């Protein structure tokens, strides 16, 4: 039985894992870099160990150092979160070798899932349809270009070690392919330490729909319904929701059965996600397995009533799943908005720095997973996700309205955020009607509509702004007046 879990991660996901462990009476071990000295996960864990400098390679990706902490602290299991070492099969193997329960799939299964080409082959064998593309890794940009010309542009360059939208580029011409090749390689190395590239057909006007899969060590497997994550920027998810407006009960079951097959095909254990593209004609194509707990898992928790971290721990403990597929029913609708520290108008460039003040939304069926607190800092060393704002409703409309309300209540001082963008998106008829696709932002000119919204918002505030200026001027003028009397130098400077 797992009694002490090291969380090889930081930020909101470390806090998320700690919460369930605490509730279950399981001890937690936090690790932290220099940069995270004042982070909440350090304060909330049972024990906390400093593991190195700010740069991920020197701390959260430092397998040996993390292993040292696990061994010296008497940890019997490790939760990798997402990102960092979560899909690194070398780390999973290192844990296995040291008799530490890695909360996730086996190293072999992870290796198979992580090798997008071998995984694709396994899916084809299991009759799970996949996206058309090259037969394997490409050795350089020129070979990638050759394949691209065979399957036809646009194509996607994808690092098999990427994830979360990093290490991925859509290119439309030979020139773009040549330029993008190095970037994809570099991003993948920056994020997970290695890279190897495949080329796939890029399908247009697609929806990104993924299934939560779940399989125990006794071969019992179920799916925990789908999530639609079509609203993206630069291939990174912004807004997720469940159920998908493009999936009805029949389709849910049909694809759900494929998902169970997919899990079996790679001998997957614990929780994971099978990602699909849904083409405009309604066809589903498997893209990849995310061999870890995902960022957007809370919305699936909301509609299933399950605690996914508890489920992960139970499976890691060797317990059989406590339910069959037929026991599981979706309850209501849930939406997640990823609150990123980024400047929408600067091509989503990161925005970092101190956050002197923050107001975290709450209310009926509102959940906000975040590492923010008044006085914290958003670090440039780690990713831009500051908070995951989730709302549930009995109907989609109820969850949408609650989300708009919660977005209005969310105040983060000091950094640019994606909150205004989400308010604009959630108000569009296209979003309300479920006309989702991965090019949603471009297709519906969302950035321009955001600009318009912000302009109108300023107009709405004009009266109060002038009132604020009047009051300030009055107090400011009286200050100047007294300065004039007591400080002649000030006066003379004004007169110059």
């Amino acid at each position: 039985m797992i009694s002490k879990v090291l969380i090889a991660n930081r930020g909101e996901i470390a806090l998320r894992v700690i919460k369930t462990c605490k509730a279950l009476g399981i001890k937690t071990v936090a690790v932290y870099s220099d940069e995270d000295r004042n982070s909440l996960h350090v304060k909330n864990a049972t024990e906390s160990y400093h593991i190195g400098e700010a740069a991920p390679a020197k701390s959260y990706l430092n397998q040996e150092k993390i292993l040292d902490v696990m061994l010296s602290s008497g940890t019997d299991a490790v939760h990798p979160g997402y990102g960092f070492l979560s899909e690194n099969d070398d780390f999973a193997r290192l844990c296995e070798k040291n008799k530490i329960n890695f909360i996730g799939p086996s190293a072999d299964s992870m290796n198979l899932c992580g090798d997008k080409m071998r995984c694709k082959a396994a899916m084809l064998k299991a009759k799970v349809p996949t996206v058309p593309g090259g037969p394997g890794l490409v050795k350089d940009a020129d070979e990638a270009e050759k394949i691209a010309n065979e399957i036809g542009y646009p194509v996607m360059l994808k690092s098999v070690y990427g994830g979360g939208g990093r290490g991925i580029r859509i290119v439309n011409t030979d020139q773009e392919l040549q330029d993008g090749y190095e970037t994809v390689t570099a991003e993948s190395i920056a994020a997970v330490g290695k890279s190897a590239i495949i080329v796939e057909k890029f399908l247009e006007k697609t929806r990104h729909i993924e299934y939560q899969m779940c399989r125990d060590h006794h071969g019992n497997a179920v799916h925990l319904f789908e999530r639609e994550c079509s609203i993206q920027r630069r291939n990174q998810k912004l807004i997720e929701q469940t159920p998908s407006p493009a999936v009805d009960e029949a389709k849910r079951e049909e694809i759900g059965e494929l998902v169970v097959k997919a899990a079996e095909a790679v001998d997957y254990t614990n929780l994971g996600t099978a990602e699909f593209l849904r083409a405009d004609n309604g066809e589903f194509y498997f893209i990849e397995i995310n061999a870890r707990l995902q960022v957007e898992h809370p919305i699936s928790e909301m509609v299933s009533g399950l605690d996914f971290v508890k489920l992960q721990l139970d499976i890691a403990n060797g317990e059989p799943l406590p339910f069959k597929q037929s026991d599981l029913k979706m309850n209501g609708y849930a939406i997640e908005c990823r609150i990123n520290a980024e400047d929408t108008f600067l091509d989503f460039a990161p925005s970092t720095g101190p956050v002197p003040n923050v107001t975290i939304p709450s209310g009926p069926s509102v959940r906000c997973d975040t590492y923010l607190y008044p006085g914290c800092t958003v670090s440039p060393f780690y990713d831009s996700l500051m908070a995951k704002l989730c709302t549930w409703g009995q109907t989609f409309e109820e969850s949408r309205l609650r989300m708009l309300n919660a977005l209005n209540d969310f105040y983060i001082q000091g950094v640019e955020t994606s909150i205004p963008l989400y308010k604009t998106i959630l108000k569009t008829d296209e979003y309300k009607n479920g006309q989702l696709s991965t090019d949603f932002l471009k297709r519906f000119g969302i950035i321009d509509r955001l600009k318009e919204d912000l302009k109108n918002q300023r107009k709405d505030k004009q009266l109060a702004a002038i009132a604020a200026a009047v009051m300030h001027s009055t107090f400011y003028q009286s200050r100047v007046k007294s300065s004039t009397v007591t400080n002649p130098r000030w006066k003379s400077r004004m007169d110059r």
Partner: protein
Amino acid sequence: MEFKLEDIEETFNGEIVSKISNNEYLIKIQDKEHHIQILDINSRGMEFVLDNHYHSVNYLENQTGEMKIILDGVPLTINKNSKFDKIVYKSSGGADVGSAQKNLRSQIPGKIVSIEVKVGDKVKKGDVVCVLESMKMQVSVKSHKDGEIKSLKIKEGNSVNKNDILAEIE
């Protein structure tokens, strides 16, 4: 007094008409009277109820007549004595603006992973000058104008802060 709301390019008249009580005022904006009740006030900001609507304002900067405020989370710029400002600006020769145009600044903090130009290179607006890494992403910094690289202020592997000068381009 006249106030210009820069964001919507409109000018308003505003003044205090009378003080009703210690924290209540009657103010006039464009010939219409409004009631303002101050809930909380200090040098950095104010919470107030204007005609029974709550607002919160932070005063960020206040230089030579230009006020930058955040009102209910919305950033706004207000100019008072706007004519005076223009005169000051003109007589200063706009030196600051010229220098800003010469300097290519980083809009984000990050680590320089590669530099794509060298001193003396001719660049076009939009050409990549260097690549930054921030939050695990590669971000290309592009030239803001056509010109020649006069100097480079960065080295590969260095970290830069927001607004640091990366290069001078003339």
